[in-house]
């Protein structure tokens, strides 16, 4: 009997333990956090942009994928700005001016990102050089043998 009571206390404690994890607000989401724009063309523009913006609270998700309240507030910003006639790239630039390149999943060429674009070009050039030399050599060898 005493053991059962002890177990019950443990179970109740275990249930209460994760409570601090619920440290999130209980406010309703921003108007455009979960509501689409009425115009399907504008909503498509907003959705495409939201797929390429990083959630700041949950950094490996886009704001389109995340349920964090802050991601909802960012979606509201995107949709209400699109509705106000801003272009998606202007909204991306607005966020990059506040959070740096980090907030965008679509890297642009900048002082820190240029190797991303330069390295593939360099590797292709090296491979092309090696292949040309090798194949050219083989053709010469074949020519000499004949």
């Amino acid at each position, binding site marked *: 009997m005493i053991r059962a009571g002890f177990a019950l206390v443990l179970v109740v404690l275990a249930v209460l333990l994760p409570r601090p994890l619920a*440290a*999130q*607000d209980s406010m309703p989401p921003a108007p455009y956090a979960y509501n689409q724009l009425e115009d399907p063309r504008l909503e498509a523009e907003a959705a495409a942009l939201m797929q390429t913006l990083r959630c*700041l609270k949950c950094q490996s998700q886009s704001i389109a994928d995340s349920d964090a*309240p*802050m991601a909802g*507030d960012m979606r509201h910003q995107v949709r209400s700005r699109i509705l106000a006639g801003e272009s998606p790239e202007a909204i991306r630039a607005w*966020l990059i001016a*506040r959070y*740096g390149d980090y907030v965008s999943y679509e890297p642009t060429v900048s002082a820190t990102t240029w190797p991303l674009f330069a390295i593939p070009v360099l590797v292709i050039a090296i491979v092309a050089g090696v292949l040309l030399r090798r194949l050219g050599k083989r053709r010469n060898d074949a020519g000499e043998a004949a």
Partner: protein
Amino acid sequence: MKNRIWLWAPLALFAFFAGLAGYMLTQEKDQFVESTMIGQPLPDFALDPAFEGLPGAAKADFVGGQPRLLNIWASWCLPCIAEAPQLEALQAQGVEIVGIAIRDRPEDVASFLARHGNPYTRIGSDRISEVQLAIGSSGVPETFVIDAKGVIRYQHIGDIRAEDVPVLLAELEKAR
């Protein structure tokens, strides 16, 4: 024979990247996203009061007089409880602290302040994080030093610990 050694190059390259990955795994990851608004003026905003006891906050409240602290916080944020005594210490040193409460309710703001003390002169209510996003803040709590022209001069991410108080006081002095 001389060319043989080059056969090992791909494996060496792979070993290098494996080593690099292993090394990076042991490094502490910086989870903070810093604002790139340092040196920029505050964006225009005017927020309603977060509860009945104090006025709301607007950009105009930061212009003139001494540099101020802009504290981004929320009653539902646990680290904000931890930093409450440090904010009071800063207030005791004569620092004006303007709060912005993120996604908060008036009754929750009032009960938080009743329980943990009120170091603020004003608190604006940012129900949809719009001012937070406009100044490049990515969480609660965060504290910004704003100079008397309304320019953002410094950002402190996370709760203010006792050792951060002198740092903030020095940044306020620098912003003078």
